[in-house]
């Protein structure tokens, strides 16, 4: 790794430490439903059409927002509705309007199926500011297989076109890269560019939910490096702002495949209210990471007095992380990649890139790499 990158990562490390101390809440997820009209093969939520847990009444979540309003800058606190599929909630515009009236910017992640023109307009009138739409293939076949629903590709394409042509709406398209679509990424990129998409986020699945036992979902080291090279080259080309998702320390690829160095903000800037009222950080952090429940605890008290497990990550220096030379930059990888019970790291991005975390030498040959051997 070159000196400049090391310097930036070192500075960023200081920044992360100050952020952890300040722990300013800027991003609040609301898992507003577990119901979903899709049957995605990778879904970490294990959601179903008729979820066992009922939707949270909007009043319960809005009370949390009203309670924290004196303590945060609502204009700078992003409320993100997630699921399940948020659009299956019929009162979504009412929820959004109430959040807008309190001064919070809000948005949601969607499969695009229900984002028809009329619905989009009603949400925009309710103050919708940001949308993320999933698209997992340049052809119907790969997307529909992945999403478990025929016709979903076409609906997603239509939704993307609507969002792209809406002024002032912040958006991006997100793609889950898997063995079936990795070869098609250049064609998918071209498709998105032709639709006028400016921001594209790619991510990989981690071994949870339905993804756990599906061999088609987890990329090999070669494929993972292929994807990294693809994102880097696409960014250099400059036609579309492609980036890798927030998870994982990426060694040589840091700042080559996304704007920011790796920073797991869970519990530092990010909190969540899960569908059953549990208070956590990113929605993928459940089980032992839950810090309280809105039906039992005051959210703001929980945010200020708990979350130590996320703000002090020193406990993650165990197992393979204990002897890893990149730990100072990585600090235990994304929390959702660690076992909720034992704390052991389940998924190391350095290993995904064929790097031995202890020796910091790459076992996989890749002629396109920035440095042929990654010694940090």
């Amino acid at each position, binding site marked *: 790794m070159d000196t400049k990158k090391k310097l930036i990562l070192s500075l960023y490390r200081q920044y992360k430490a100050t952020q952890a101390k300040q722990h300013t809440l800027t991003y609040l997820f609301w898992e507003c439903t577990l119901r979903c009209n899709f049957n995605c093969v990778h879904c970490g939520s294990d959601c179903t059409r008729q979820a066992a847990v009922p939707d949270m009444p909007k009043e319960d979540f809005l009370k949390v927002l009203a309670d924290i309003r004196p303590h945060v800058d609502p204009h700078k606190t992003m409320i*993100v509705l997630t699921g399940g599929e948020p659009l299956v909630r019929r009162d979504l515009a009412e929820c959004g309007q109430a959040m807008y009236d309190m001064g919070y*910017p809000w948005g949601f992640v969607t499969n695009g199926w229900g984002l028809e023109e009329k619905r989009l307009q009603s949400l925009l009138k309710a103050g919708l500011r940001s949308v993320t739409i999933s698209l997992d293939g340049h052809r119907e076949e790969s997307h529909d297989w992945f999403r478990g629903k025929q016709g979903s590709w076409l609906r997603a394409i239509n939704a993307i076109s609507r969002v792209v042509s809406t002024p002032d709406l912040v958006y991006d398209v997100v793609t889950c890269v898997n063995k079936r679509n990795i070869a098609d990424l250049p064609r998918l990129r071209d498709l998105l560019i032709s639709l006028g998409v400016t921001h594209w986020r790619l991510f990989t699945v981690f071994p949870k939910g339905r993804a756990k036992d599906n061999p088609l979902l987890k990329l090999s080291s070669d494929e993972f490096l292929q994807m990294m090279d693809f994102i880097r080259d696409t960014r250099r080309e400059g036609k579309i702002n492609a980036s890798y998702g927030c998870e994982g320390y990426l060694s040589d690829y840091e700042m080559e495949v996304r704007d920011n160095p790796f920073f797991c903000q869970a519990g530092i800037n990010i909190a969540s209210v899960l569908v059953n009222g549990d208070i956590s950080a990113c929605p993928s952090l459940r089980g032992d990471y839950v810090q309280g429940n809105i039906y039992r605890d005051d959210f703001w008290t929980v945010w200020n007095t708990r979350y130590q497990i996320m703000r002090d990550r020193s406990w993650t220096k165990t197992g393979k992380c204990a002897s890893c030379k990149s730990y100072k930059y990585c600090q235990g990888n994304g929390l959702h990649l660690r076992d909720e019970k034992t704390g052991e790291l389940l998924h190391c991005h350095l290993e995904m890139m064929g790097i031995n975390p202890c020796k910091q030498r790459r076992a996989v040959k890749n002629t396109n790499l920035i440095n042929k051997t990654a010694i940090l």
Partner: protein
Amino acid sequence: MKKFVLKTYGKIIAWVLTALGLYTSCDKIEPRVEYGTPTADFIVKGNVNDAHNLQPIKDMGVIYKSDMAPFGNDTVRTDANGNYELEFTKTAFGAEDITVYTSDIDKDEFQSDTIRIKASELKQIGKRRKNWYNGKFEGKADFTLVRHPGPVPMYGIIPTRHQEIKGE
């Protein structure tokens, strides 16, 4: 000869006092007239760059905010190379701590940052004059700014700020 010795002696005393922290204009300690306002000129120079790529940031606002009534601001913007030069006059008996901060006035892409330049870090570049003028001082403050918001969380959306609905 006697005059020369006295002058030299005076300079030595002034130099020692300067070294001890009492700011003088090199060699003279002049009495002040009453009912004046002690002032000094200050220049703060520096550079503003992006922490992610260390590239200069253009048009970033660099601000000196007065700590005395009427609490006015002096604001300049960085040039294409990220450089700025902030010049202002303030009520001061000599070099004093100066606080400058940056603000991304137009785009709000970067987080604000504050740098406090200690009095001892300022360099005197203009002499103290008679009466209440205490000289000119120069300081340096380089900013390395971090973008906000941070990375987009897994399954999250691109964060943005509140915006009034048009036509309301």
